[in-house]
C-alpha cells in the first residue's frame, strides 16, 4: 500500500534544512562496530532538537562497500549490517513523527559489479537481453571524449571483462559498471526500485551522477538530450503516482549546464550548486567577494518550483572540477598543504579543519550557507566542528564515526575499538574527548548551540528559502552584501539585508540602500533596531569575519516633527532663511518661481550648492547663483532650473537643478528619507512644506522619463531621442531611485534596467558621452559598453540627461586591480627580488613575461589581456566606416603631427616650469629625482621632435577615442570588463574633447593607469610595512611591465586580427613606438602637474614614469 508523503506543502524542500547522514557512521545499536538504523532512530531526538527538517541518508543497500555504498548490489533491500527493511520503516515513521522528511539515494547510473544484473550480463551471450542491461563494446576506442572522473585510480572508462570477452563502460570505478539507459528494460527496473521506496513513504530521492546516464560517441557523454529524456520519464512516473515528493540532482557541472536538469520544472526539483562551494572558500581565503558574486552572476534563473541545494561540505572531496586551473592551484595551496589532503580533483577535508578550526570563520561560512538562495545541506558532525583523518584512504577521512561523548569509541559504539568500521578521531585537537555532542550540549557557547540557534532563526523567515537575491556593490570588496526579498503569500514583504566581512580584520562599508529609504534595519539575531535608512550610503562597521542579518522593516511610527510657526504668506517670502523659512500654502514650484522665488533661490543656492557632491567647483568662491532659465515639467509641479553660477574670479558655469515643493506627508517623508535634498523649509504649523531637489521625488523621475514616451509639442524646451531598438514604454511605471555612487552627475536608476544620468554641469552642445555611446550602440553595435537607450536635450542642443542600460557590476577596474595588487604584494612579500623586472611594453619587440610574474600575477595578466582585447574592439568599433563626419576615420596628416608635437612641447615647458617653481616645496625624498628630471628636459623635448619629422602616412588613422581612458573607466562585470564614461577629460572644452586622435592616446592612458595602480597600491601596502618598501619596488616594476606587455600584446593581436580595417588604424611599429612614447610623455606631464597641485605624496609616480621615458630616449 502506498503511504503518503509526510509533507503537505508541495514546495516543502524550499524551506528545508537537509542533514546528510551515513547510517554506518551515526550510531551503532548492536555493538558490532557499524552504525545501524536502530542507532539512528535513537538519535532522532538529537536531530529534531538541532532543527534539521530532512534527513538525507547515504546508500544503505546491500553492497560490497567498495565505494561507500554507491556500488549497489540490490536496490530493494537494506544492507544487513545496518538492519532490516522493518528497521528502515520504523526509522521512516519515527522521522515523520518528528516532522522530518527522509531522502534516500537513487544510484542509477551504475551498479556494483556484484549486482546480479551484471553477473547475469557478463555470462549471457553477446547481444542478449541480459547483456544489454549494461554498456558493452568490443573496442575501448569509442566514447573517447568522455573525461575520467576518478583520475587517481582509473586510467580508462572501459574495462575488459574476461568472461564476457568485451569491454564494459564505467564512468566511476571499474567495479561500478554503467547501466544501459538505451534499454527500456533498464528504465523499468529503475522505476520499480524507485516505487518500492516511494510506496513506503520516502519523501525524496537524490539522483546520483545523473549527467552520465546515456553515452553517445563524439560527445563528452555528459548532459546529453537522451539523459534528460530519461530523467523526465522518471519525474513523470513520480508525478503520476505520488504527491509532494522531491528529486535532487547530483550534477557536478557549471550552473548553465545544471540548469537543464530543472527542465521546465519537469525534471529535478532541486540540484546541487557545485561551483559555488569552492568559491565560498576561495572568497574567504582571498578576502574578496568576487569569486562568489562572479559565480552567482553566471547562475541562471530556475523555474519557480525548483531550488538550488547549497552545501559547505559533504561525504565526498571538496570538488575542484568546476574551477579554472589557476583557481584549482590556488585552492590546493590555500587549503591542502599536505598532499594527503588531496584526492581526485579535490580536497578531502571537513569544514572545521579547512578553516583551521577558527570559530568565527566557521560561523561566517555557515551564515552564508543559511542565507544564500537555496536549501542548505549540512554534513553530519559539522555542527560540532568535527575533524577528519587524512590517513584513511579514499574519501574515508571525512566519514569517521559521529562523536557523541567522551566515552569509549566516542559513544558511537560499545564494540571493541578494533571492530569499528573506521577508527574514531583521537588526536588532541579534533579527538572525541575534545569535540563531542554531550560536551557541546552542556556548553551554552558551543558551536552546536550556535548552529541550532541559527537554524531555528532561519526557519522563522521564509525569505531565506524562497526569496530573490540581489548583490550590493560596496566599494570595499572584502564585504559581501546582498538583499534577500520575498513577497509573501499574504502580500507582506520580507526583506533581509545580509552583510558579511570576509576579512580577518575589521572592515568599514557604506551600502547603497537608497531604494529602501525610510525602512528600519532590525538585526535579526538580537532583534536590535539599527538607524533608519536614508538615501545616503548606509555605513556599517564589521568585526573580523562577522556578519549581519538585518530585516528591513517598515519604519516604526515616530513622534511628529516639531513645526515652525508660520507668519503670513508675504512675510514668508520677504524674510526667508535657508532651511527654516516659512512660506505660503499651497504653493507650487511654478508659482514660486513666478513670484518671489528667484530672490529666494538666490539666497539659498550658494550655500546649498557648496554642500552638494555633484557641485564641482567647491574650491572657488561663488559670487552669485541665479536661475538663468527654467523648464516646467508635469504642469508646474516640477521645474528644471538652470542655475548660472558666477565665481569671484569672474568665471561662470551653468548647473541643472530640478526643483519642487512638497507638503504634508510628502514633506515628512522627504525629511526622513532625503534630508540633504531639501533647500529650505517653507512650512507652517499645519503642513510644513519643503523646497527640494526634485530628483528625490518618484513623481519627478517618472515625469522626466515620461518625456521619452510622450509626443513632442511644438515649442517644447525638453526634447527626447531614443535608440531605434529601445521601446521607452517598456519601462513606463518602473520604480526608480537615486543612485548614490555618482559624484559629478546624478543617476536615476529605473529598477535594474536603465540609468538616466542627469548631467549637473551643463555645457552648450552635445555631450560626447552620449554622442559616442549612441554611435557605438546604434551604428557599431559594440556591446562592451552599457547600451545607449536615449537622451534628453534642451531645444538649444544642450544635453540634459543620458539614458543607458543598467549594467550590473562588481566595481570598477581600478578597485579590482588594486585588490589584485594587494594580493600580489602579499604573495611576494617574503620573496627575494625577482630575477628580472621584465621590459616595458613596446611595438618594436615581443617582450617575454618573466616566470615570477606568471607565478604571482596570473589573474592580473589575464585581466590585462582581456582589457587589451576590449580596448582594441572599442577602437575598431569607433573606426566603423560611416558617412558621419564626426566619426569617420581620417589619415594622420602632417598638420596633425605638428599640432601634437607643439601641444606636447608646450606641456613639457609648462610642467617642468611648475616643477622648478615648486622644487622647494616638494617632499625631500623627491628633490633629487625632480632635479634629475629637470636636467633631462632636452631628452623629453626630443620625444616631441620625433613626431614632427616622420612621414604622416605611417602614423595610421585618427578616430574618435575614449579620451580619458584609465582603469576607473572600466566596470568589472561577470568576469569581463565594460567600458564607460566617454565624456573625455573634464577640464578640456567640448570642442577639444570631440577632436579625433590616434587610438594610441587611449593605449597610453591605460598604460599609465597600470603604472599608477602598481605604485599607489604599493604605497598603500607598505604604509604599515615600510621596511618592505624597497624590496617590493622591484616587484612593482615587474608587475607593471608584465601587465603592460600583456595588455599591448592582446591589443595588437585583436587589431591585427581585424584585417584591413585594423591594418590601417595603427601606425607602423617604429612610428607607433614614437607616438606612444610621445603620448605617454604628455599623459605623464599632465599627471605631474596634477599631483603638484593636488597630491604631492603621489608625485613620485609620474616622476618615475617621466624619468623612465627620458632614460629610454637617452
Amino acid at each position: 500500500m502506498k503511504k503518503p508523503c509526510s509533507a503537505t506543502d508541495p514546495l516543502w524542500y524550499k524551506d528545508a534544512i537537509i542533514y546528510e547522514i551515513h547510517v554506518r557512521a551515526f550510531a551503532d545499536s548492536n555493538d558490532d562496530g557499524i552504525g545501524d538504523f536502530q542507532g539512528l532512530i535513537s538519535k532522532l531526538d538529537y536531530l529534531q532538537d538541532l532543527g534539521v527538517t530532512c534527513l538525507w541518508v547515504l546508500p544503505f543497500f546491500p553492497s560490497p562497500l567498495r565505494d561507500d555504498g554507491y556500488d549497489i548490489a540490490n536496490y530493494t533491500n537494506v544492507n544487513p549490517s545496518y538492519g532490516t527493511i522493518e528497521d528502515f520503516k520504523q526509522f521512516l515513521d519515527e522521522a515523520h513523527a518528528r516532522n522530518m522528511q527522509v531522502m534516500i539515494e537513487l544510484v542509477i547510473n551504475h551498479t556494483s559489479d556484484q549486482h546480479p544484473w551484471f553477473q547475469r550480463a557478463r555470462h549471457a551471450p553477446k547481444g542478449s537481453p541480459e547483456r544489454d542491461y549494461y554498456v558493452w563494446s568490443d573496442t575501448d576506442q569509442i566514447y573517447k571524449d568522455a573525461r575520467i572522473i576518478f583520475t587517481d585510480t582509473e586510467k580508462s572508462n572501459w574495462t575488459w571483462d574476461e568472461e564476457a570477452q568485451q569491454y564494459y563502460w564505467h564512468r566511476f570505478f571499474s567495479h561500478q559498471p554503467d547501466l544501459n539507459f538505451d534499454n527500456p528494460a533498464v528504465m523499468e527496473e529503475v522505476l520499480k526500485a524507485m516505487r518500492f521506496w516511494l510506496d513506503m513513504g520516502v519523501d525524496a530521492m537524490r539522483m546520483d551522477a545523473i549527467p552520465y546516464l546515456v553515452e553517445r560517441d563524439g560527445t563528452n557523454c555528459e548532459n546529453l538530450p537522451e539523459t534528460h529524456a530519461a530523467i523526465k520519464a522518471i519525474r513523470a512516473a513520480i508525478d503520476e503516482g505520488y504527491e509532494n515528493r522531491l528529486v535532487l540532482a547530483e550534477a557536478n557541472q557549471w550552473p548553465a549546464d545544471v540548469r537543464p536538469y530543472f527542465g521546465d520544472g519537469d525534471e529535478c526539483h532541486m540540484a546541487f550548486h557545485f561551483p559555488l562551494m569552492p568559491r565560498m572558500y576561495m572568497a574567504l581565503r582571498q578576502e574578496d567577494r568576487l569569486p562568489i558574486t562572479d559565480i552567482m552572476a553566471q547562475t541562471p534563473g530556475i523555474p519557480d518550483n525548483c531550488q538550488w541545494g547549497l552545501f559547505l561540505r559533504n561525504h565526498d572531496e571538496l570538488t575542484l572540477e568546476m574551477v579554472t586551473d589557476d583557481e584549482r592551484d590556488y585552492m590546493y595551496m590555500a587549503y591542502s598543504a599536505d598532499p594527503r589532503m588531496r584526492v581526485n580533483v579535490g580536497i578531502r577535508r571537513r569544514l572545521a579543519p579547512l578553516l583551521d578550526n577558527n570559530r568565527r570563520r566557521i560561523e561566517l561560512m555557515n551564515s552564508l550557507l543559511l542565507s544564500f538562495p537555496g536549501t542548505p545541506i549540512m554534513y553530519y558532525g559539522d555542527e560540532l566542528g568535527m575533524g577528519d583523518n587524512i590517513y584513511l584512504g579514499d574519501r574515508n577521512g571525512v566519514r569517521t564515526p559521529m562523536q557523541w561523548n567522551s566515552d569509549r569509541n566516542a559513544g558511537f559504539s560499545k564494540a571493541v575499538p578494533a571492530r569499528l568500521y573506521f577508527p574514531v578521531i583521537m588526536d588532541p585537537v579534533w579527538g572525541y574527548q575534545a569535540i563531542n555532542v554531550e560536551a557541546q550540549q552542556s556548553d551554552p557557547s558551543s558551536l552546536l548551540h550556535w548552529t541550532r540557534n541559527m537554524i531555528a532563526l532561519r526557519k522563522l523567515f521564509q525569505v531565506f528559502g524562497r526569496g530573490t537575491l540581489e548583490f550590493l556593490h560596496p566599494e570595499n570588496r572584502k564585504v559581501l552584501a546582498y538583499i534577500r526579498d520575498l513577497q509573501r503569500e499574504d502580500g507582506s514583504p520580507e526583506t533581509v539585508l545580509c552583510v558579511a566581512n570576509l576579512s580577518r580584520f575589521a572592515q568599514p562599508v557604506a551600502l547603497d540602500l537608497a531604494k529602501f529609504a525610510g525602512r528600519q534595519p532590525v538585526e535579526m539575531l538580537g532583534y536590535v533596531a539599527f538607524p533608519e535608512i536614508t538615501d545616503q550610503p548606509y555605513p556599517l562597521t564589521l568585526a573580523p569575519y562577522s556578519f549581519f542579518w538585518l530585516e528591513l522593516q517598515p519604519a516604526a511610527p515616530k513622534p511628529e516633527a516639531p513645526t515652525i510657526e508660520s507668519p503670513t504668506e508675504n512675510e514668508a517670502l520677504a524674510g526667508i532663511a535657508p532651511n527654516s523659512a516659512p512660506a505660503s500654502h499651497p504653493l507650487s514650484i511654478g508659482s514660486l518661481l513666478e513670484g518671489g522665488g528667484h530672490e529666494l533661490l538666490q539666497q539659498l543656492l550658494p550655500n546649498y550648492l557648496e554642500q552638494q557632491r555633484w557641485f564641482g567647483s567647491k574650491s572657488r568662491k561663488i559670487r552669485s547663483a541665479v536661475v538663468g532659465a527654467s523648464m516646467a515639467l508635469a504642469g508646474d509641479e516640477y521645474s528644471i532650473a538652470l542655475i548660472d553660477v558666477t565665481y569671484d574670479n569672474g568665471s561662470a558655469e551653468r548647473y541643472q537643478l530640478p526643483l519642487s515643493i512638497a507638503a504634508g506627508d510628502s514633506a515628512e517623508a522627504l525629511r526622513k528619507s532625503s534630508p540633504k535634498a531639501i533647500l529650505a523649509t517653507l512650512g507652517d504649523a499645519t503642513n510644513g512644506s519643503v523646497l527640494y531637489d526634485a530628483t528625490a521625488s518618484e513623481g519627478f523621475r517618472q515625469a522626466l522619463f515620461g518625456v521619452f514616451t510622450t509626443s513632442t509639442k511644438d515649442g517644447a524646451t525638453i526634447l527626447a531621442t531614443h535608440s531605434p531598438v529601445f521601446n521607452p514604454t517598456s519601462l513606463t511605471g518602473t520604480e526608480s531611485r537615486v543612485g548614490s555612487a555618482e559624484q559629478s552627475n546624478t543617476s536615476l536608476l529605473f529598477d535594474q534596467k536603465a540609468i538616466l544620468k542627469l548631467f549637473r554641469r551643463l555645457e552648450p552642445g552635445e555631450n560626447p558621452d552620449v554622442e559616442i555611446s549612441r554611435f557605438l550602440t546604434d551604428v557599431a553595435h559594440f556591446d562592451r559598453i552599457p547600451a545607449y537607450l536615449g537622451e534628453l536635450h534642451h531645444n538649444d542642443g544642450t544635453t540634459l540627461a543620458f539614458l543607458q542600460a543598467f549594467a550590473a557590476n562588481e566595481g570598477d577596474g581600478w578597485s579590482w586591480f588594486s585588490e589584485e595588487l594587494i594580493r600580489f604584494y602579499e604573495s611576494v612579500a617574503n620573496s627575494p627580488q625577482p630575477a628580472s623586472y621584465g621590459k616595458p611594453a613596446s611595438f618594436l619587440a615581443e617582450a617575454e613575461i618573466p616566470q615570477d610574474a606568471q607565478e604571482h600575477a596570473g589573474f592580473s595578466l589575464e585581466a590585462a589581456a582581456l582589457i587589451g582585447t576590449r580596448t582594441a574592439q572599442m577602437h575598431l568599433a569607433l573606426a566603423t566606416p560611416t558617412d558621419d563626419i564626426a566619426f569617420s576615420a581620417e589619415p594622420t596628416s602632417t598638420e596633425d603631427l605638428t599640432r601634437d608635437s607643439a601641444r606636447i612641447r608646450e606641456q613639457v615647458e609648462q610642467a617642468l616650469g611648475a616643477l622648478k617653481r615648486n622644487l622647494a616645496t616638494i617632499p625631500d625624498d623627491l628633490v633629487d629625482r625632480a632635479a634629475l628630471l629637470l636636467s633631462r628636459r632636452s631628452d623629453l623635448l626630443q620625444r616631441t621632435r620625433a613626431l614632427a619629422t616622420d612621414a604622416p602616412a605611417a602614423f595610421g588613422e585618427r578616430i574618435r577615442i575614449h579620451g580619458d581612458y584609465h582603469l576607473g573607466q572600466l566596470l568589472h562585470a561577470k568576469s569581463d570588463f565594460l567600458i564607460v564614461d566617454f565624456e573625455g577629460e573634464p577640464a578640456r572644452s567640448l570642442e577639444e574633447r570631440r577632436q579625433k586622435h590616434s587610438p594610441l592616446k587611449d593605449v597610453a592612458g591605460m598604460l599609465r593607469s597600470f603604472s599608477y595602480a602598481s605604485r599607489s597600491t604599493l604605497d598603500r601596502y607598505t604604509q604599515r610595512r615600510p621596511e618592505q618598501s624597497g624590496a617590493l619596488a622591484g616587484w612593482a616594476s615587474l608587475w607593471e611591465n608584465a601587465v603592460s606587455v600583456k595588455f599591448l600584446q592582446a591589443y595588437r593581436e585583436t587589431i591585427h586580427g581585424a584585417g584591413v580595417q585594423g591594418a590601417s588604424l595603427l601606425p607602423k611599429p617604429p612610428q607607433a613606438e614614437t607616438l606612444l612614447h610621445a603620448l605617454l610623455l604628455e599623459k605623464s606631464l599632465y599627471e605631474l602637474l596634477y599631483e603638484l597641485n593636488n597630491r604631492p605624496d603621489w608625485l613620485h609616480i609620474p616622476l618615475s614614469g617621466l624619468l623612465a621615458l627620458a632614460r629610454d630616449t637617452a
Partner: protein
Amino acid sequence: MSSSPIADISNASPLETAPAVRSTDSSRATLLICLPSLGIDGLQTMQDRIGAALPGQSVVLASPDVLPDNESSTEHLRLVGYPAGPPHASWTLVASDFLTAADLAREHNASALMLLGAEADSLSSAGLQALATCILNQRVDLALPRYKTGPHDALVSSALLYPLTNALFGVGTHLPLPLDAALSLRMAERLAAAARRLGNGAQSTPLVWPAAEASVSSFVVREIEVGERTLPHPGDADLNSLLAEVAGSLFTDIEAKAPFWQRSRSSISAVQASEPVLLGSETEELAEVRAMAESFRSAYLNLQEIWSLVLPPQSLLALKKLSLAPPESFLMPPDLWARVVYDFVLAYHLRTINRGHLLGALTPLYLAWVTSHLRRSAGDAALSSRHVEETASAFSTEKPYVVARWRWPDRFNP
C-alpha cells in the same frame, strides 16, 4: 488596548445600541447555533430568546436535548440533534466542539455559526443578538464575547491569556479561550482544521485558540460586550493543573506560530501604571494578600532552583526582593510579570526542564500577580480593569524581549 496590523479587532457597540438583525440578505443566510445540553426547559428558553433576538433569521439550532425522532422545524428555525455526539460542555470550548460545529455547518449549509458553551441560557437576548449581528452583518470572521465580570473573575485570562494573545497575535480579546463564539464559515473550517491537527495530541480535550488562528489567517476579529453570564466552574481541577493545562496549550500554540508572531509588529501604546490602593488595616483583601504573599515567600525558597534555570538574574533578583517585601507593599510590577511569562514560554519551547515541572513552577508566580492584582484593584472593577490593561500593555512593551530571547536563547543574558 493596542491595535493590530493584522486582525481587525475592536470592541463592538454596547448592547443598548446593537441593531436588530433585519437585513434581508443576512436573514436568507443560515445561522447555525450549537448549544450544550440545557434540559428541555433550558432549550425552550433559548428558543424563545433566539426567536426574540433574531426575528426572521433562518436559524438551525443544534442541541443534544433534541433526539433524532423529535427534530422539528418552523418557518425560520430548525431544531436538530448532534449525530456525532454532544458537545463537550465544559468551562470552555474545546477542539471537538469546533470539529462538530464545522461538520454541522457543512451539513446544514450554514453561512455562519454561534457556539454557545455550558450554561448558555444565562446569556441575554441582547447578548445573543449582538454576537449574531456582528457575524452576519459586519464581515467579521470571529466574534468573541466579553462578559460583565467582577474584579476577581477570569484572572488566568487577565494575567496570562489576554496579555499574551494581545502582544503576540495583536488580538486584544479579553477571553481568548472562549466559552461562546460566533464564527464565519471559513473561520469554522480553519478552527476545525486546527482541531484535527490537535487530534493526536496528548491532551484528551485539546484546546484551540481561535483568536490566534484568526490572526494568522488575517481574519477579522471583534470582541463583543454581551453583558452578564454565568461562568461555569472548571470542575474538580485545582489551580495548578488548570493553569498547567491552559498555559501549556497556549505555549504550544505560541511555539507553533512563532514564524508569525516573530514577524508581526504591533504598535505599542503604553498604559501608565497607577498607584496601588492602600488596603484598610483589617480588610478581607489584606488578609488574603498577607496569606498569598506568605505563600509566595515559601515558594521562592523552594522553587528558586528551578526558576534559576528559566529566569535571568535580573528577574531572579526582582523576585527575591518581592519575596522579602511586606504584604503592605507586595507588588509584582507588570513588566517583571511579562518577562517572567516570556521566559517560561521560551523554556517551554526549549524544553529547558520537564514541561510539567516547568508549568508547575509558574503557579506561585501567577499567584504573585494575583496578589498584586488584589492590591491594585481593592475590589473596584475600574481599578481592576486598569491593572489588567497595564499588564497587557507591559506584555506588548516587552515583546521585543521575547522575540530576541527566542531568536538567540543564550542563557548569558541580563
